[in-house]
């Protein structure tokens, strides 16, 4: 177990910090409480967990929705700006009547409708040098669904420095990718992508169904890491192509010279 794993297990596994389930929660989560290897202990871990989701568009919104439904106790939502009509093909936490109003408020409203027990902290801002350390420190795990590489690199650096696991997701047209980064144990984002890749544009072609699919898978990875369930995509990259419904996982390499994580590799 890496230092990051131990830190997380200590934080979520300590009986003094884990919050008990109410009768209402036992009822709401009845179907997943019967999942083998999860049970009431897993549910308590989710209830005690805080997850940073940035941003909450197509991918992050789907991830946040699945995490809220699963009973994660607290979500920190980060996304600057107001809803645009062109968001609505994929950003399922936004609604047509909310065009022109802040995205994070729409997301918070929808998530609280789904799960009134959820604590939501919203930031009408994007990840930057000025806020990344504080945002990462406020959460047990990060779901990175940011479209700009500079935001992803900042999150990755802060996650590695603070030993926080990060689920990293991406999409394009009918394709999507997902990996889970645990500092000290897996390659970090900068091991894979050392710098800004050429040719990436902020607006790219994609269907909402692709965003929702990979966002839901990102949520499942977060649940697995937070509760110790199953085998997360550690050191593996899921590559999905919905044109032919092919799903494969690539074994990833650490970069021993990585400027972000070389001093933290086991």
């Amino acid at each position: 177990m890496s230092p990051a794993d131990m830190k997380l297990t200590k934080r979520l596994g300590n009986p003094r910090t884990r919050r008990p389930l109410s009768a209402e929660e036992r009822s709401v989560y009845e179907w997943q409480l019967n999942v083998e290897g999860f049970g009431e202990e897993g549910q308590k871990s989710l209830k005690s967990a805080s997850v940073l989701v940035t941003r909450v568009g197509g991918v992050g919104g789907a991830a946040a929705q699945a995490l809220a439904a699963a009973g994660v106790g607290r979500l920190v939502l980060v996304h600057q700006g107001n809803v645009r009509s062109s968001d609505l093909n994929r950003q399922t936490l936004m609604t047509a009547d909310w065009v022109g109003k802040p995205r994070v408020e729409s997301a918070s409203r929808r998530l609280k409708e789904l799960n009134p027990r959820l604590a939501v902290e919203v930031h009408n801002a994007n990840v930057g040098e000025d806020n990344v350390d504080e945002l990462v420190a406020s959460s047990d795990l990060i779901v990175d669904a940011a479209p700009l590489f500079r935001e992803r690199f900042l999150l990755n650096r802060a996650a590695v420095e603070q030993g926080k696991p990060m689920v990293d997701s991406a999409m394009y047209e009918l394709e999507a990718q997902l990996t889970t980064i645990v500092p000290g144990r897996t390659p970090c984002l900068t091991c894979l992508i050392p710098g800004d890749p050429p040719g990436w544009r902020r607006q790219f072609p994609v269907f909402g169904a692709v965003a929702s699919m990979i966002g839901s898978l990102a949520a499942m990875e977060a649940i697995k890491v937070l509760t110790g369930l199953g085998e997360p995509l550690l050191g593996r990259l899921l590559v999905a192509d919905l044109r032919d419904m092919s799903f494969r996982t690539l074994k990833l390499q650490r970069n021993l010279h990585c400027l972000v994580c070389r001093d933290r590799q086991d």
Partner: protein
Amino acid sequence: MKVTVKYSAQARAATGLSSEELELDEPTTVHDLVIRLARQHGSAFRRLALDANGCPHPSLLVAIGDDQVRPGDHRKVLTGETVTILPPISGG
């Protein structure tokens, strides 16, 4: 020797291909294969694949079979292997 090259995301758009089979006269390194593909497929793909010095761009993701390799790797591509070119993509 024959190898298969698969193109993902923007590389598919830049080449107009999802995959192709290449006939190589001799074993070729990953490094040299990326450069060969960049020369073969024109400026849009070249911008994705090569850096300003004409070397494989370090942020290009490349896999042989199901194993990631560095784009500048001097590991030889063997006959029958499948190389996948995956320009980095992001969320949104």
